[in-house]
C-alpha cells in the first residue's frame, strides 16, 4: 500500500463532485492517463450518487464514507452508505434496471465499464458497500 484516505460526508448532491475529485487526486499520485482518471471519476460519481439517491432517498441527512487505497499499480475504492440497502443485488446491477422511472439504471453498468472489478455488498436495512478496483496500465 502506497497511500490511502478515508472521507466521510453528508449525502448531499454537491459531495458527488467532492468525492470524485478527491479520489482522482489520490489516483494522480500514480501518474495515470487522462482516460484512467476519467474512468475513476465516473465510477466514483455513480457509486456516490447511488448512495445518496437509493441509500438515503435523496435526503441530505445520511452519511457516505469513501475510502481509497493506492497500491503500486492499482487503486481500490470503497463507497459505503448506511442507508436502506438493496434487496436483490444481481437485479440492481442489471443494465437499465431502475427503481425510479426518472433515472436510467446505468449506474452499475458504467461502474463495471470504467473499473476492472465491482463488488456490491448489501442487505435491506444494513446499507450498501461498493468495492471497486482499477489496475493502471504499465507506463514504462
Amino acid at each position, binding site marked *: 500500500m502506497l497511500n490511502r484516505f478515508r472521507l466521510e460526508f453528508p449525502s448531499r*448532491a*454537491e459531495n*458527488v*463532485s467532492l468525492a*470524485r475529485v478527491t479520489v482522482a487526486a489520490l489516483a494522480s499520485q500514480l501518474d495515470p492517463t*487522462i*482516460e484512467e482518471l*476519467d474512468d475513476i*471519476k*465516473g465510477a466514483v*460519481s*455513480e457509486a456516490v*450518487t447511488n448512495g*445518496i*439517491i437509493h441509500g438515503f432517498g435523496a435526503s441530505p441527512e445520511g452519511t457516505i464514507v469513501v475510502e481509497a487505497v493506492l497500491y503500486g499499480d492499482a487503486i481500490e475504492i470503497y463507497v459505503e452508505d448506511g442507508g436502506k440497502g438493496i434487496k436483490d443485488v444481481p437485479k440492481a446491477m442489471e443494465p437499465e434496471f431502475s427503481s425510479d422511472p*426518472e*433515472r*436510467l439504471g*446505468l*449506474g452499475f*453498468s*458504467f461502474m463495471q*465499464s470504467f473499473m476492472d472489478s465491482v463488488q456490491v455488498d448489501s442487505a435491506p436495512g444494513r446499507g450498501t458497500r461498493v468495492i471497486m478496483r482499477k489496475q493502471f496500465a504499465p507506463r514504462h
Partner: protein
Amino acid sequence: MLDLETVGEVLVAKLRGELDLKTAGELRQGLDRALDGFTVRHLVLDLENVSFMDSTGLGVVLGRYKRLAGAGGKLVVLGLQPPVRRVLDLSGVLRIVPEFNTLKQAVEALRRGEASA
C-alpha cells in the same frame, strides 16, 4: 451553466461545467422552461464546455430527447469532450442522437430535416 438562444424553431443550449446530481435538476428545469416558453421543435445541445457527465446528467439529455421526439422534434449534440463522448457512446445515446461538428451544420441540418444519427 446554461446559455439559451433560438434560431427559428431551433433552441440552442450551451452548457457549461459538470453534469451530475448537483447540476442535473437545475439544467432539466432550465431546458424544460425554455422548451415550454418558445415555439421550438428542435434542440441543439452544445457540450463543448462540459467537462464531465455521469448517468444522472445523461438522464437529462435522454429525457429531453424523449420529450422532443414525442412532439416530432429532434435533439442533436456537438462539442463532445472525451469523457462526455464515452458516456454517450457507452449508453447507446449516440446511436439515436445525431452529432455535428459545428453549430451552423447542426442548425442547417435541422432546418432541412436532415439530422439523423
